[in-house]
């Protein structure tokens, strides 16, 4: 599978409160509605204009802070194809796999990509193509490959319990 999209680039330590504000945690319940407030306290341009297939590029420690899974759901439901970052905060990292949102850790690529660039990601080959350069990224750890294949944790659990 490969995707190609326009980049929304941000810095280090982007936290879950600016991705999905805490005041909405119990008032917004539908997944589609979560998408509407995505990155509201970080970047209103993204909030207004991000399109399905776009790509988010972040610095180190993307998704630090709260365990709120809506900070992943809102981005997935917005149709973002992949998040590429220098590193992810650990709960966010797990939540992405559990929600079936592709993420890539690739510091070199992050440094070479700017806001608004067109970037291509080939998941099979493990390559990011940006500004004419190729950046390799390692395959997902074996224990999360099953999650990704099944489309997230809940379908994975259903399958493993024979309920799919």
């Amino acid at each position, binding site marked *: 599978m490969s995707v190609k999209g326009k980049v929304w680039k941000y810095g280090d330590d982007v936290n879950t409160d600016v991705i999905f504000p805490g005041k909405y945690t119990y008032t917004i319940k539908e997944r589609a509605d979560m998408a509407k407030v995505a990155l509201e306290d970080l970047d209103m341009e993204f909030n207004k204009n991000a399109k399905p297939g776009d790509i988010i590029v972040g610095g180190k*420690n993307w998704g630090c802070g709260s365990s709120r899974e809506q900070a992943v759901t809102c981005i997935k439901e917005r149709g973002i194809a992949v998040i590429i970052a220098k590193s992810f905060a650990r709960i966010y990292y*797990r939540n992405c796999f559990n929600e079936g949102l592709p993420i890539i850790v690739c510091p070199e690529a992050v440094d070479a990509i700017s806001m608004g660039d067109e970037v291509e990601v080939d998941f099979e080959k493990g390559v990011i193509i940006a500004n004419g350069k190729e950046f390799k990224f390692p395959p997902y750890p074996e224990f999360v490959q099953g999650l990704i294949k099944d489309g997230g944790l809940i379908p994975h659990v259903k399958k493993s319990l024979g309920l799919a």
Partner: protein
Amino acid sequence: MGKTFAEKALGRAAGYDVVANQVVTVEPDWCMSHDNGAPIARTFKKIGVKNVWKPERIVFILDHAVPAPSSDHAVNHKEVREFAAEQGIKHLYDVTSDGGVCHQKMCEEGFALPGLIMVGSDSHTCTYGAYGAFSTGIGRSEMAAAWATGKIWFKVPESMKVVVTGKFKPGVSAKDFILKFIGDVKADGADYMSVEFHGEGIENMSIAERMTLCNMGIEFGAKNAVCKPDQKVLDAIKDNAKCDRWEPLWADEDAVYAAEYHYDLGDIEPGVAKPHKVDNYGPISEVKGTKIHEAFLGSCTNGRIEDLRAAAAILKGKRVAVRTIVIPASWIVYRQAMKEGLLDIFLDSGCVICNPGCGPCMGNHEGILAPGETAISTANRNFKGRMGDKDSFIYLASPMMVAASAIKGEISDPREAL
């Protein structure tokens, strides 16, 4: 080669010897959820399993917005109650005088115990390391899956050792130390790691102070944070341990660490986390005189009786210059503060006392900021918009500094108010 705490705790739970970076699947001793028990219950139902794996291991504590400030929140609480009744989940701390902030309740009710594997659908679940537990926050899907299967996977983390010696000078506390530490190692300093607090500096601390340290573990990326379960912990759990599965565990002397830091508490001075990041440390000298509009004393970080005492000692006989919101971390703390006359001190000085719960910490209610306003808070996060408005500003500080600042209406040095 010796073992770290994380290797011992996860190895004990897995039933075999483990080393860092190995992946293990274990059964959690407790699964804690707060108001988000409702969306987790909805996800659980999607899995298609009829019953949770062990209802006696699931704990619900309503705290994020209590009593419900809106119909949406009320529906949420109702769903938690209904699910608990339907599944036979007895550990439900509802909107009653048995309640309080989830992490405070987990500790004071005897759920937090040495050596246990504890997961919570809240990032500050790492607090229970103050009792020697391996505890960590997880997302909603993961909690729903844990309820269904009784299993959760962990990569055995590498460990960070923080060796702490010395004693605080007057006017300085555990919050000042952890804010300084986070400023040094930054928000990702311990990403994916287990953080162990060692040394006589920790041994001399109360469990409340250790809870403040472990609570803030997530703010520098830790998977879990832990202190040695010493006699203070054993005395505290003696009469109220909720199960007998616990066992005191601690790292071997020759355990191997990915990082090691040394601090002398005598070198620590009062300090804050400046807007809008927890690792944006500033010593008092840098921020003194900054005008504030609100002071908040409370939260899972600093809403315990020790914190209220420290603040009350400064507020006694004085009048606050800005609105000051005091929220004891539980009704047990509230009642104790009442017995000790602390609530009178707060009321005499002009503070507003709210019912135990998370209050304004994540912008739900009871002290939301207006655009352009600045708060000083004892909570754990100062992210943009955290207390409800993205154009407001939050400084994180100790209970003593919050009290001293409330009196002057500007960020103030607690050492001058003692």
